C-alpha cells in the first residue's frame, strides 16, 4: 500500500484567483460523487463520467470512460477506466482497454496538470508525470474540470504555475525540506515512509549499473549481456512493483499519444515503423509487462542504446525511431516540381530530420533549410537571387576593402576587428584538407566573409565561435557570396549567441535547466545541490552547435537535422538533455562537482553517438510536448526574436 505525507492544505491565493475567473459557481467534492468503500478503506472523492480520450483526430472515435479520484489512507490516486461495452465509439479490444486504462496513479507521481479551454470543443486536461511523460488528453464531455482541480486541491498541494495560468503544479512545495523529500520520493513513487535513505541505496544500484554501461561509450553501443546484468528491484516491494508497472504503462500510453500526434500532423506511415509494426511493438511490451519479465531482453536489438533509468529504457525502446539513410539525389528530385519548387517543405524537412543529406546535396539544400532560398522558389528564381545577392555581397565587402591603410590608422575598431578575425581564421579547422597549409585561399575567404559580416551587422560585429559556424558552410557552399548569405541566414537565428552580454546564451542555458527539471528532476536536483545550475558546462555545445563535439561530417549531419526545426526549433536543447541523461548515472554516481563535470563534458568530445543521441532527443522532445515548449521562453535562440520587449526571460538568478 502506498502512503504519502498529507500536505498542508492551507488556501492558496493563486488558486483562489483562478476560481474568480470562472463564471459558474462550483461545488467542492459534491456529495453525490462521494462514496465510501469500507472493504479496502478507499474513498472515492471525485467521480466524473463521460471523460474521453481521442485516439484519432476524430472526436467521434473517442473512448469514453469514468475518471475518479480515490483517497486511500492519506494518499490520493487518479484512475480513468474506459466503459465496457461501448464499442460503438471505437473498436476496443481488451488489450486496448488495458493499454488506455489509467489505474491508480498516485499523485506523488504527478508533476502537473495542464488545463485547456479551447474556444471550440470540450475542455480537456493533460496530466504530466514526474518522469516527464504525459497521459493523452482527457476530454471532459460533461464539464467538471474545475471541480476536478478543486477536489485535488483538497487533498494535495496544488499551485498554479507562475509561468502559465493553466498549469497547476502538484506537490510543488515551498518548503525546502519538503521539496527535497519530494524530489527524492517522486522519481520512483517510493512511499515517503521508506525514507530518503532507502532511496539513496536504490540510486547507488542504478549508478553502479550506469558506470558499467558507460564503459561501452567508445565502442558505440551496449551489449545485450550488460542489460542482463541489470540488477532487479526487490521482488516483494509492492510499492516498487506498482511504480514500475505504472512507469511501463506511461511509456505505452505516451507511445499511443505519439501515434495520435502523428495522425494529427497527417503523418503517413511510410517512414519508420509501419502501423502494424507499431502495434506489434506495443503488443510485445504489453505482454512483457503482464508477465513481469524484463522488456529489455527481447527487444534490445531494436534499440542498441538505453538510457539508465527504467522509464527511459522503455522510452528508447518504444520511441527510438530508427534513423534513415541520408536523402540522395534520386529521392530529392521527388520533392521538386518540374521548375524546381519544393512542393511539400514539411515532408522535406521531415525527411532531412530523419536521415540528413547526401553530401552532394548539401550545396543545393542547405540554402533552403536555412531560409536563404524560399522553398517555393524555382530553379530560375534561385539563380536570379544568387546573382542579385552576389552583387549585394560585393557592395558590402567593398565597404571595408575601400578603407585605406591611412584611414585604418584612425579607425581602431576596424583594426581590432580585422586583427581578431585574422588571428582566428588561421585557427579554424586547419587540419581539414579544405583549410590546411600555408596561404590556403579558403582561409582568406573565411576572413573576408567574417569581416564583411561584421559590416553587414556592425552592432554584432565579430565574436569567437563565428568562424566555427562559418567553416562548414563555406566548405559546403564553396562559393564566397553563397556562403556569406547562408551564414547571414544562420546568424538570423544564432546571432544572439554572440551578443556581448551573452544574453542569448544565458536564455538557452536557462531553458536547458528548465527542460532538465522537467525531464529528469533527480538530475536537476543534483545540479542544484552541486551549484551547477548555470549549465556553463554546456556552453560550448550551444554556442557553436556541437561543432567541437563531433567530427566534421557528423557536425554537418547534426546541423542540417537541427535546421529542419522539425519536431522543435529547440531540438538542440533536447540534444543537450539527451546527452546529459545518458551520462546521468556517471555524473551523480561519481558525485561530480562543477569542475569535474566541466572536464568530463569537455572530454566527451568525439565520443558521442550522434544517431543514438538524435533518437533520444526526438523522444524527449515529443515526451516533453507542450510542457517542454512552455519551459522555453519566447525568443530563445534559435527562435526569431520577439518584438514585445520581453526578449530574454532570464531574471531567474539561478542562471545568472
Amino acid at each position: 500500500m502506498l502512503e504519502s505525507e498529507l500536505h498542508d492544505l492551507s488556501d492558496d491565493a493563486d488558486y483562489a484567483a483562478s476560481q474568480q475567473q470562472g463564471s459558474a459557481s462550483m461545488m467542492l467534492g459534491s456529495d453525490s460523487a462521494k462514496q465510501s468503500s469500507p472493504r479496502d478503506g478507499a474513498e472515492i472523492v471525485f467521480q466524473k463520467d463521460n471523460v474521453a480520450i481521442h485516439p484519432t483526430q476524430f472526436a467521434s472515435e473517442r473512448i469514453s470512460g469514468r475518471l475518479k479520484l480515490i483517497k486511500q489512507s492519506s494518499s490520493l490516486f487518479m484512475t480513468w477506466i474506459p466503459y465496457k461495452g461501448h464499442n460503438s465509439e471505437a473498436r476496443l479490444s481488451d488489450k486496448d482497454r488495458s493499454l488506455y486504462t489509467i489505474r491508480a496513479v498516485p499523485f506523488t507521481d504527478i508533476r502537473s496538470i495542464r488545463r485547456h479551454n479551447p474556444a471550440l470543443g470540450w475542455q480537456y486536461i493533460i496530466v504530466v508525470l514526474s518522469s516527464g511523460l504525459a497521459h493523452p488528453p482527457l476530454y471532459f464531455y460533461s464539464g467538471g474540470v474545475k471541480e476536478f482541480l478543486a477536489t485535488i486541491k483538497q487533498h494535495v498541494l496544488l499551485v498554479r504555475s507562475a509561468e502559465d495560468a493553466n498549469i497547476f503544479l502538484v506537490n510543488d512545495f515551498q518548503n525546502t525540506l519538503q521539496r527535497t523529500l519530494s524530489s527524492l520520493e517522486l522519481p520512483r513513487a517510493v512511499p515517503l515512509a521508506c525514507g530518503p535513505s532507502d532511496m539513496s541505496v536504490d540510486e547507488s544500484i542504478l549508478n553502479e549499473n550506469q558506470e558499467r554501461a558507460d564503459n561501452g561509450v567508445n565502442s558505440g553501443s551496449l551489449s545485450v549481456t550488460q542489460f542482463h546484468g541489470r540488477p532487479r528491484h526487490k521482488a516483494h516491494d509492492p510499492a516498487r512493483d506498482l511504480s514500475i508497472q505504472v512507469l511501463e504503462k506511461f511509456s505505452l500510453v505516451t507511445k499511443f499519444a505519439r501515434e495520435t500526434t502523428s495522425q494529427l500532423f497527417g503523418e503517413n506511415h511510410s517512414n519508420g515503423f509501419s502501423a502494424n509494426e507499431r502495434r506489434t511493438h506495443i503488443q510485445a511490451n504489453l505482454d512483457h509487462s503482464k508477465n513481469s519479465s524484463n522488456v529489455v531482453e527481447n527487444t534490445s536489438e531494436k534499440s542498441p542504446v538505453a538510457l539508465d533509468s527504467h522509464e527511459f529504457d522503455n522510452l528508447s525502446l518504444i520511441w527510438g525511431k530508427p534513423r534513415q539513410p541520408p536523402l540522395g539525389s534520386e529521392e530529392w528530385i521527388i520533392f521538386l516540381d518540374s521548375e524546381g519548387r519544393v512542393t511539400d517543405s514539411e515532408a522535406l524537412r521531415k525527411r532531412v530530420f530523419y536521415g540528413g543529406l547526401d553530401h552532394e546535396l548539401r550545396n543545393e539544400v542547405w540554402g533552403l533549410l536555412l531560409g536563404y532560398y524560399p522553398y517555393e522558389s524555382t530553379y530560375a528564381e534561385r539563380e536570379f537571387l544568387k546573382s542579385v545577392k552576389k552583387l549585394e555581397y560585393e557592395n558590402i565587402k567593398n565597404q571595408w576593402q575601400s578603407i585605406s591603410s591611412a584611414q585604418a590608422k584612425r579607425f581602431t575598431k576596424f583594426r581590432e576587428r580585422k586583427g581578431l578575425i585574422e588571428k582566428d581564421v588561421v585557427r579554424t579547422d586547419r587540419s581539414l584538407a579544405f583549410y590546411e597549409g600555408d596561404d590556403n585561399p579558403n582561409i582568406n575567404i573565411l576572413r573576408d566573409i567574417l569581416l564583411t559580416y561584421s559590416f553587414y551587422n556592425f552592432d554584432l560585429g565579430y565574436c569567437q565561435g563565428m568562424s566555427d559556424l562559418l567553416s562548414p558552410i563555406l566548405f559546403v557552399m564553396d562559393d564566397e557570396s553563397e556562403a556569406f548569405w547562408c551564414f547571414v541566414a544562420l546568424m538570423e537565428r544564432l546571432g544572439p549567441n554572440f551578443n556581448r552580454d551573452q544574453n542569448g546564451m544565458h536564455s538557452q542555458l536557462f531553458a536547458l535547466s528548465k527542460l532538465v527539471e522537467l525531464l529528469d528532476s533527480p538530475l536537476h536536483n543534483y545540479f542544484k545541490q552541486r551549484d551547477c545550475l548555470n549549465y556553463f558546462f554546456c556552453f560550448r555545445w550551444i554556442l557553436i552547435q556541437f561543432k567541437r563535439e563531433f567530427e566534421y561530417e557528423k557536425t554537418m549531419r547534426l546541423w542540417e537535422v537541427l535546421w529542419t526545426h522539425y519536431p522543435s526549433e529547440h531540438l538542440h536543447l533536447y540534444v543537450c538533455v539527451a546527452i546529459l541523461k545518458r551520462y546521468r548515472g556517471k555524473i551523480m554516481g561519481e558525485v561530480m562537482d562543477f569542475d569535474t563535470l566541466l572536464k568530463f563534458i569537455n572530454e566527451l568530445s568525439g565520443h558521442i553517438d550522434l544517431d543514438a543521441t538524435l533518437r533520444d532527443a526526438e523522444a524527449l522532445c515529443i515526451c516533453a510536448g507542450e510542457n517542454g515548449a512552455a519551459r522555453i521562453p519566447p525568443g530563445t535562440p534559435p527562435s526569431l526574436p520577439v518584438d514585445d520587449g520581453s526578449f530574454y526571460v532570464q531574471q531567474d538568478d539561478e542562471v545568472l
Partner: protein
Amino acid sequence: MSYAYLFKYIIIGDTGVGKSCLLLQFTDKRFQPVHDLTIGVEFGARMITIDNKPIKLQIWDTAGQESFRSITRSYYRGAAGALLVYDITRRETFNHLASWLEDARQHANANMTIMLIGNKCDLAHRRAVSTEEGEQFAKEHGLIFMEASAKTAQNVEEAFIKTAATIYKKIQDGVFDVSNESYGIKVGYGGIPGPSGGRDGPSAAAGGCCS
C-alpha cells in the same frame, strides 16, 4: 598516477597571446602553431616534482575574448594558481592586464598565486612591451613575473613549476587549509598535509603573493 597534491591552475589573458601554446608546450613539450582557437575552456595536466613530492597540475586553458568573460569568471573558483599571459609584441594585451587582474581578484580566492607571463619573447624584434614594464607591473601587483616563449620553450617549464613551488611553500607555511578544496588544492593518496593542514589559517599573505 598517485600524487601528493593536485593544484588547479587557470591560464588567462587576451585572445591570441599564446595561452594554449604555453599549455601545449608544458604538457606535450611541443609547439603547434596551427591549432583551433579555444571555445570555453580546455584542459591539460602534467605531473611535476617539488621537494621530492609528486604534484599533479590540472590546468584550465580559457578563451580570451572579452565576450566570454562572464563564463570565464566561473572557472576561477577553486584555482590555486593563475598564469596571466600577455603578448610582448602587442601593447594592448599588456594594457588589459589590470582588468584581468581585477577579475581574478574578484572571483578567485585571495591566496591564489598569480604568475605574470610576457609570452613570445622569441620575437624580440617586434617587442612592444619592455621587460622592465612587465617587472614593474608584477611588482606593483604582487605577482611573480617571467618572460617566456611557447615557441622556443624558454621559461615555460620554469613558469609552471615556480608557480607550483610558491603554492607548495604556502601550504608548508600553513596559509591554506588543504582539506578545503576551494583553495584549488587536493591532497592525494601519497600526500602529507602541511603542518597546519586542517585549520583555517588567518592567511597572512592574503591578497598578495610571495615572490
